């Protein structure tokens, strides 16, 4: 039930479990911040496709992580929000304003590359 963070080239990929407790979120945040510094990663994809629900609590913490990453110079894309979860989030009145979103991991990595290219044109 703890999140995993993998390095893939210049990016990080975090896969979230079905549910995260407060300390799980804190662990994810600290791990991402640490790895971004260590690998000089230019961005992170956070895959929430395994998560049962995205309630207001999870959304707030996810936004916080995206904001922290951006202060360290790294872009952040959230992927894997299913249609059902997206519907529930919308009903709740939630949106992701800091983090970008993409359909899945592939799209997320592509979006990150594009973001980075925008920021640093010659980087592949």
């Amino acid at each position: 039930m703890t999140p995993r963070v993998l390095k893939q080239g210049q990016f990080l990929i975090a896969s979230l479990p079905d549910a995260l407790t407060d300390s799980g979120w804190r662990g994810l945040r600290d791990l991402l911040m640490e790895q971004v510094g260590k690998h000089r990663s230019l961005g992170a994809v956070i895959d929430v496709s395994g998560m049962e629900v995205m309630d207001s609590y999870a959304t707030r913490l996810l936004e916080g992580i995206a904001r922290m990453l951006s202060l360290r110079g790294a872009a952040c894309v959230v992927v894997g929000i299913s249609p059902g979860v997206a519907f529930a989030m919308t009903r709740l009145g939630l949106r992701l304003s800091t983090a970008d979103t993409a359909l899945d991991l592939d799209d997320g990595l592509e979006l990150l590359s594009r973001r980075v290219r925008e920021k640093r044109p010659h980087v592949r």
Partner: protein
Amino acid sequence: MSADRVVVRHEADIISARQSARGLAATLGFSESDLILIATAISEVARNMVEYAHGGEIALRALQEGSRRGLEIVARDEGPGIADLQLAMQDGYSTGHSLGLGLPGARRLMDEFQIDSRLGAGTTVVMRKWVLG
């Protein structure tokens, strides 16, 4: 199993409550999309119990009204209660550090929603959702 009861005291209990509700709702024939709405609503209400009321109890019950089936969620706590219910039901109002969407959002996620709160006595939220015929 057509009724269930979950004590919600710690953070991990929020996940248990969610999973119990999801399990019971699934047996009643709710769509996958509705299961997510129900799980999300219960998540919001359960977190409030942990956050603001030192915990409480959530009772789940299958409903049958004619041929209509539904799920009832009763979340009861003996916490401090809510001073201004109208304010608490407004989007964006929170006395904590959070988004203030829990109560108004849960109301939008479910078909029926009632909240009753007495200062010093506690808070009870009753929510119902019906299986789409």
